């Protein structure tokens, strides 16, 4: 079974600064995907960024980037130029690749990020 661990229950950052959220995972799979999701007070889970395990290049999406260390099973999220709208709960998630029986997301416990003005 896969496990995802987020060791930072809460974090805060000043507007316009950079913050890094940590995530580690445990799996015996070689083909998988990793995600960061954002859940604002509206409750909808929004995909922030996605990484394919077989790609060595770290994914980036505008102000969001990841540091994917496959050997260390680490997948951190860096948010640059933080904005007030980034305030939300952030979840790291794991998915096996190419399962014929279906796919599921395994989530961590989340990190509450607060961006202060």
């Amino acid at each position, binding site marked *: 079974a896969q496990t*995802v661990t987020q060791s930072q229950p809460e974090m805060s950052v000043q507007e316009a600064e950079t913050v890094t959220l940590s995530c580690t995972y445990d799996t015996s799979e070689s083909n998988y*995907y990793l*995600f960061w*999701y954002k859940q604002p007070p*509206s*409750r*909808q*889970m*929004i*995909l922030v960024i*996605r990484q*394919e395990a077989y790609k060595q290049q770290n994914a980036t999406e505008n102000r969001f980037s990841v540091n994917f260390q496959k050997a260390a099973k680490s997948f951190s999220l860096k948010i640059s130029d933080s904005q007030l709208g980034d305030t939300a709960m952030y*979840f790291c998630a794991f*998915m*096996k*690749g*190419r*399962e*014929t*029986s*279906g*796919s*599921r*997301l*395994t*989530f*961590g*416990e*989340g990190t509450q990020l607060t961006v202060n003005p």
Partner: protein
Amino acid sequence: DAGVTQSPTHLIKTRGQQVTLRCSPKSGHDTVSWYQQALGQGPQFIFQYYEEEERQRGNFPDRFSGHQFPNYSSELNVNALLLGDSALYLCASSLDRRGGGGMGYTFGSGTRLTVV
């Protein structure tokens, strides 16, 4: 383009009752998954439906059941409600023709269920 819609947004039920939650997937998506998110925790996978069949199931009792209709919409049913079933129930849809994931999901805003 409508995203994933869930109904109702909130409901309160009494212990022992039964509840049905509904989900309409994003246009073009054919796979629906359900997750339970207890307060302050990450979502837990309940089950996934594809081609009107339950394709995968998480560690939830048989009190949790579901259905997918030909138009890909889905229902989650919970029987004999317990206080511990109080949670946010999230529906997520995806395009999953290859039988595998990887493209991520589109989530709805959830149904907040309170059992008293």
